[in-house]
C-alpha cells in the first residue's frame, strides 16, 4: 500500500465542469490524487484530457463561469481550497502554491523588465522594499542558472531566449519557496537540449527548496526522469496511477500500454518492433461516448466495458487502475 507521511495536497473526487453552448463539458470528472511534501508526481495524458484544467482548479485560476466545481474537494494542508475566498486564494498563489506554464514566450509581460516582474513577487508576498526585492530577484536568477543576473534583470523578455525565459518563470514561481509547484508542460515548447537542462534545474531546485512538484506533461520521457509516481488521465478521469517504475515496467491499463508503445525506445530494434498507435482520437469532453469513454478505442474491450465505466481500484499495492480486465486479472 502506498503511504505518504502526511498528505500535503489531497484532491478528492474533483469535478470541474464547464457550461458551454454545446452542453456540459466534464473536463475533470472525479479525480483523486495525493501529493506528499517534497514529492514529485506526474500527470500524463493526451491533449484535452483535463490535466491543465486540474492544475488551474487547484490554483483557482479558472474563469467562473463557464467553469464550476460540481463536486469534490482540494485539501491543501487539510484546508479545502475550493472554499477559500478570492483574497485568501490570492495570498496562497505564488506563496505556497505556484505554477509554471508551457509557453515561456508569452508568460512574461513584454513591456516590463525581467527584474521588474520578479521583484513584484517579493513585493506582493514578502512586502519588501524595491532595493531589497531587486537583490532577491538577482539572487533568484542566479539560483536558476541565468548568467550575469545583475545585467539580465534590466533586460526585457524579448531579449531572452526561450530557455532563459523558462528559467525566469521558474525563478518567479519558486521565489517565495512554495510548498507545491504546478508545472504545466514546462518543457514542451523548448529544444530537446534545453529540456534536459530545465528538468535538471527543476530536480536540483526541488532538492534544495524541498518543493513538491505536480508535473503535467504528455512527455513520458520527462516523467520517467523525475517523478516518483504517475497518474494517467483520459477524458477527465484517472485511468491508472502507480509508482513510476511500476507503471513503466508493468502497465496494467490498455491505454497506458498504448501510450508506452507509441513512443520510440532506445533498446528496441527497428527491424523487429514498430511503434503502435492508439486507434481513434480523444473524444471531446463535451461529446463523450456513452458507457466507458475509452471502450471504443480499446483493443481489449469486453462486453461489460460497453455498458459501464470501471472504477479506479487497487490492483496491486500502490497501483490503481480503472479497467475491468486489469483489476480482476
Amino acid at each position, binding site marked *: 500500500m502506498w503511504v505518504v507521511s502526511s498528505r500535503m495536497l489531497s484532491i478528492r473526487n474533483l469535478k470541474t465542469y464547464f457550461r458551454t453552448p454545446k452542453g456540459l463539458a466534464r473536463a475533470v470528472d472525479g479525480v483523486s490524487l495525493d501529493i506528499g511534501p517534497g514529492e514529485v508526481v506526474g500527470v500524463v495524458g493526451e491533449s484535452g484530457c483535463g490535466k491543465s484544467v486540474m492544475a488551474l482548479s487547484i*490554483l483557482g*485560476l479558472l474563469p467562473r463561469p463557464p467553469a464550476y466545481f460540481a463536486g469534490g474537494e482540494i485539501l491543501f494542508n487539510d484546508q479545502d481550497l475550493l472554499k477559500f475566498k478570492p483574497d485568501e486564494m*490570492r*495570498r*496562497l*498563489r*505564488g*506563496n505556497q502554491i*505556484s*505554477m509554471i*506554464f508551457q*509557453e515561456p514566450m*508569452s*508568460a*512574461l*509581460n*513584454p*513591456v*516590463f523588465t525581467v527584474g*521588474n*516582474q520578479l521583484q*513584484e*513577487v517579493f*513585493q*506582493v*508576498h514578502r*512586502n519588501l*522594499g*524595491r532595493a531589497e526585492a531587486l537583490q532577491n530577484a538577482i539572487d533568484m536568477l542566479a539560483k536558476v542558472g541565468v548568467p550575469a543576473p545583475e*545585467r539580465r534583470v534590466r*533586460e*526585457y523578455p*524579448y*531579449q531572452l531566449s526561450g530557455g532563459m525565459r523558462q528559467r525566469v*518563470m521558474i525563478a*518567479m*514561481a519558486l*521565489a517565495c519557496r512554495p510548498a507545491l509547484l504546478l508545472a504545466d508542460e514546462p518543457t514542451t515548447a523548448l529544444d530537446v537540449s534545453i529540456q534536459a537542462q530545465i528538468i535538471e534545474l527543476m530536480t536540483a531546485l526541488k532538492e534544495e527548496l524541498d518543493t513538491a512538484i505536480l508535473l503535467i506533461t504528455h512527455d513520458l520521457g520527462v516523467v520517467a526522469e523525475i517523478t516518483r509516481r504517475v497518474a494517467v488521465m483520459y477524458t477527465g478521469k484517472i485511468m491508472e496511477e502507480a509508482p513510476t517504475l511500476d507503471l513503466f515496467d508493468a502497465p496494467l491499463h490498455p491505454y497506458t500500454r498504448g501510450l508506452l508503445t507509441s513512443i520510440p525506445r532506445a533498446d528496441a530494434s527497428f527491424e523487429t518492433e514498430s511503434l503502435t498507435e492508439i486507434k481513434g482520437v480523444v473524444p471531446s469532453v463535451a461529446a463523450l461516448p456513452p458507457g466507458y469513454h475509452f471502450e471504443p478505442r480499446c483493443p481489449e474491450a469486453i462486453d461489460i466495458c460497453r455498458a459501464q465505466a470501471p472504477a479506479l481500484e487497487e490492483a496491486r499495492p500502490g497501483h490503481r487502475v480503472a479497467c475491468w480486465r486489469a483489476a480482476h486479472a
Partner: protein
Amino acid sequence: MNRPAASPERFRHLRASLRLWGETLRALARSPGAVAGGVLFALIIGTSICFQIFYTKDPLAQDLLARLTPPFWQEGGSLAYPLGTDNLGRDVLVRILYGSRVSLMVGFASVLVACGAGIALGLISGYYGGRTDSVIMRVADVFMAYPFMLLTISIIAVLGNSIFNLILVLGLSDWVTYARTIRGSVLSIKEKEFVLAARSVGTRNRVILLRHVFPNVLSPILVLGTVRVANIIIWESGLSFLGMGVPPPMPTWGRMLAEGRVYITDAWWLVTLPGLAIMLTILSINLLGDGLRDALDPRLRNIPG
C-alpha cells in the same frame, strides 16, 4: 518625521511608471520624426502662451478702412497687418494667435475628458466582464446611436454655450471610441499567459489591471488620441460655425475658417492661414504620437548593451 514603514511602498508603482517614462523619453529622442513633431509642437504651445510679449494687438479691434488687406508680401499688403485683415479689418495674425489658445485648449481638454472616461470604463468593462461589461457597453451603444450633433446641440442649448460646456460635451460624446478600443485590447491582453502568470503568483486584480494590462493597451490609445485631437479641433470649428461653440466674438480657428469661407475667391488668406495653423498643429501632434507609440514598445526600442 518618523514615517511608517509602508509609506515608501505606496509610491512604488508611481516610481516604476516614472522610470518607464524616462526610458520612453530617451527612446523618443532617437526618432527624428518624433523630435521634429515635438519641437514644432513645443513651438506652437510656446507661441500660444507667450505671444503677447511680442505682439500686442487687439483681436477684436476693427479697422474698416483696411478691410481685406492682403499679407505683407503681396501687392497692397503692409507690415502693419503682417498676415492681412479680414472682412471687418481685424488683424488675421493676432486672431490666429488668440485662436490657437481656444483650439488647443478645447482640443486637448476634450480628448483628456474623453480619454479619461473611456480608458477607465474600457479597462473595467474588458477586464471584469460579465454584468459590468454589459451595462457599460449598452450605455456606450446608446451614445453611439445618438447623433453627435443633435446631442451636442441639445446639451449646449440646456447648459448654455461656454468653453467649459463645449469641452464637456465634446469629451462626453467621444468617450465611447476610447472605451471600445480599450475594451477590445483588454479582451485580448487578459487572455495572454503573462496575465495568468501574474495571477498565479498572487498579484492583485487592481495591480494586474494597471501594471500588466494597461501599459499593453496604451499604444492604440495614444495613436487614437492624437487623431482625435485633430478631429475635435475640426468639430469645434463646426460647432462654432453653427453658433454652438465658443461664444463670439472670441476668435477660434474654426470660426475663422467658417467666416472666411465667403471671401475665399477674393481673400485666400482668410481660410488658408487658419487652415495652415490647424494643419501644422495636427501634423506635430501626429508625429509626436507616432514616435510615442514606437517608443512605448520595448521591442522597437534600441537598448544599448
